[in-house]
C-alpha cells in the first residue's frame, strides 16, 4: 500500500464511521443537547428500556423480519435453484427480471403499488402485509447470495451422490442443502436485516396498530435529534457488528466465502 492508498482508506473509513461514532458517544451524554458534553451517563438507556411503545415496535419488527426472511430464504433458494439448474427454460428472462427488479426498485414505488394491491383485494393491512412486502424484495437478495454459491458448487458432488444410489430427494437433503447452508444463512441474515431496516415500504403497507421500529424511530427523528434514539442506535450498531463479526469469523474458520 502506498501513502495515497493508506490516506484514501483512512479518510473513507473515517467518513463511514464518524457519524456512527457521534451517535455512540452522545448516547452516553448526560445532556439533552448534542453539542454540549455534560458528563457520562447511561440515563438514556434507562429511558429507552422504559419506552413501552418503542419496545413493542421493536418486537413487531423482529417478528416481521423473522417471518419475511424465512419466506424469502425459501423462495430465493428455489429461484436460485431454478436459474442454476433448469437451463434455458421459457420465460427465463422474465423470471430473472422479476427476481432482481425489486432489489433496485425505488422503495416508494414498491410500497405504493403493494398498498394499492392490498386495497384492491381488500386485504386487511397490518403485520401480514408487511411480511409479504418484505419477503418479496428479500427473495431477490437471497437468490443472489445462494446463486453465487450454487454456481461455485462442484456438480460432480451431486452426481457422486446419485451414483452411490441416492435418489433426487436424498441428494438434495444430504448433499445440496448442507453445502448451501452457509450461503442460505447469509441470505437469511441479509433478508432479515433489510426487513428490520425498512421504513418506506412498511409505512405504505402497514395498517393501524402495526408499527415497526423504523416507523417509530422516523416519527421521533422528524422532531429532531433525541438522545434516546442515540441509545437505540448504539444498541442496534452493536448488535449488527456482533453478527457481522460472528459471520466473518465463522466463514473464515470454515474456509467458506463471505457473503455480501
Amino acid at each position, binding site marked *: 500500500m502506498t501513502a495515497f492508498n493508506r490516506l484514501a482508506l483512512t479518510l*473513507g*473509513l473515517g467518513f463511514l464511521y464518524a457519524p456512527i461514532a457521534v451517535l455512540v458517544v452522545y448516547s452516553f451524554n448526560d445532556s439533552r443537547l448534542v453539542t454540549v458534553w455534560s458528563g457520562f451517563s447511561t440515563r438514556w438507556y434507562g429511558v429507552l428500556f422504559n419506552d413501552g411503545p418503542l419496545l413493542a415496535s421493536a418486537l413487531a419488527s423482529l417478528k416481521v423480519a423473522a417471518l419475511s426472511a424465512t419466506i424469502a430464504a425459501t423462495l430465493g433458494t428455489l429461484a436460485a435453484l431454478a436459474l442454476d439448474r433448469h437451463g434455458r427454460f421459457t420465460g427465463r428472462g422474465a423470471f430473472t427480471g422479476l427476481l432482481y427488479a425489486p432489489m433496485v426498485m425505488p*422503495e416508494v414505488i414498491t410500497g405504493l403499488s*403493494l398498498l*394499492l394491491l392490498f386495497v384492491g383485494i381488500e386485504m386487511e393491512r397490518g403485520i401480514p402485509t408487511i411480511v409479504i412486502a418484505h*419477503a418479496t424484495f428479500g427473495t431477490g437478495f437471497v437468490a443472489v447470495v445462494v446463486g453465487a454459491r450454487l454456481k461455485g458448487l462442484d456438480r460432480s458432488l451431486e452426481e457422486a451422490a446419485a451414483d452411490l444410489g441416492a435418489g433426487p430427494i436424498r441428494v438434495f437433503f444430504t448433499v445440496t442443502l448442507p453445502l448451501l447452508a452457509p450461503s442460505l444463512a447469509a441470505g437469511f441474515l441479509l433478508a432479515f436485516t433489510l426487513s428490520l431496516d425498512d421504513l418506506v415500504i412498511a409505512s405504505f403497507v402497514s395498517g393501524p396498530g402495526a408499527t415497526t421500529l*423504523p416507523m417509530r424511530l422516523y416519527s421521533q427523528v422528524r422532531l429532531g*435529534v433525541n438522545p434516546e434514539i442515540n441509545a437505540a442506535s448504539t444498541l442496534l450498531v452493536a448488535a449488527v457488528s456482533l453478527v457481522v463479526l460472528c459471520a466473518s469469523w465463522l466463514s473464515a474458520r470454515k474456509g467458506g466465502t463471505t457473503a455480501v
Partner: protein
Amino acid sequence: MSVSTARPLGRWLVRALPLIWLALFFLVPFVITLKISFSTPATAQPPYLPVIDWSNGLQGWREFFYALDLTNYQMLAADSLYWEATLSSLVYAAAATAVLVLIGTPMALAMARARPGLQPILVAMVVVPFWTSFLIRVYAWIAILKPEGLLNATLLKLGLIAQPLEILNTPLAVIIGLTYAYLPFLVLPLYAVLSRLDPALPEAAADLGASRMRIFCTVTLPLAMPGLVAGALLCFIPMVGEFIIPDLLGGSETLMLGRMLWIEFFSNRDWPIASAVAVLLLILIVGPVVMFRGAEERREEALR
C-alpha cells in the same frame, strides 16, 4: 443432473413458487398502479374513482376501464413543480454518484492492495455500516450538519469560520447524505473486481515503463470498468427515488420524486397523482436498470 432426474412436479414447483409469488406481489401491483394513475381522486375509501367492482365481475372491470382518463398526467405536465422534481432527482443522483466514484475508487483500490490477511477485515468494516440501519445513519448527520451541530461547533472553535454554516436543509446536505448512505454499494462491487485482478498485469505495465498514473488509466481502470459501472448504477437507480435522505436532510424545499410521491400519498391523500408520480419515476429508471443488467453480466464475466 440430480435435479433434472427429479419428478416433473417437483421440478415445476421449484420454478413456479417464486414466480407466482413475485408475479402476484410485484408485477400485479405495478399493473394496478398503472391503472390507478389513470383514475380520479375522490373523497372516499379508498380515495380514488373508479374502483374495481369485484361483485360485478367482467362488467365491473369494463366500467373501470371506461372511466379511465389522463387527467393526472395532464396535471403533472402542467405543473412545473413536477418537472423540476424530475430534473432535480436526476441531478442529485448524478452528482452524488460522481462524488461516490471519486471517493469510492481510491478506497476500493486501497482495499484490493492491502495485505491479504487484512482484506476480509476491511471488507467487514465497509459492510458493517451497510448492515446498520439506514434511517439511523442518515439521522446521525442531522446532529453533525445542523447550525448548532458538531461540524459548525468544531469549525467555529478552530476559528475557520465566523458564522455557523447553513448546511442542513440545503442540497449539499442531500448530496452528503446520499454519498454517505450509498458508499458501500459502490465500494464492494468495485473491490470484488479489483481484488481478482491479476497483480502481474500492473507489474507488467510497470516493467514496460508505464508510470503509476498511466498504469491506473490504461490497465487497472479499464479492467475494473464493469465493476465500477455496476456499482455506480447500483447507487444511481435507488438514489433517483430516494425518500428518507431528502426528507430528513433536505428540508421542506427539496424537490425529489420519491418525496413528492410520499407527500401526495400521505399528506395530500391523492392516490391517483401518487400513482402517476410512481409511473413517472419508473420510466425514469428503466434505462439505467437495463444498463445495470448489462453491466452485471459483464461484471460476472470479469469475475470468472
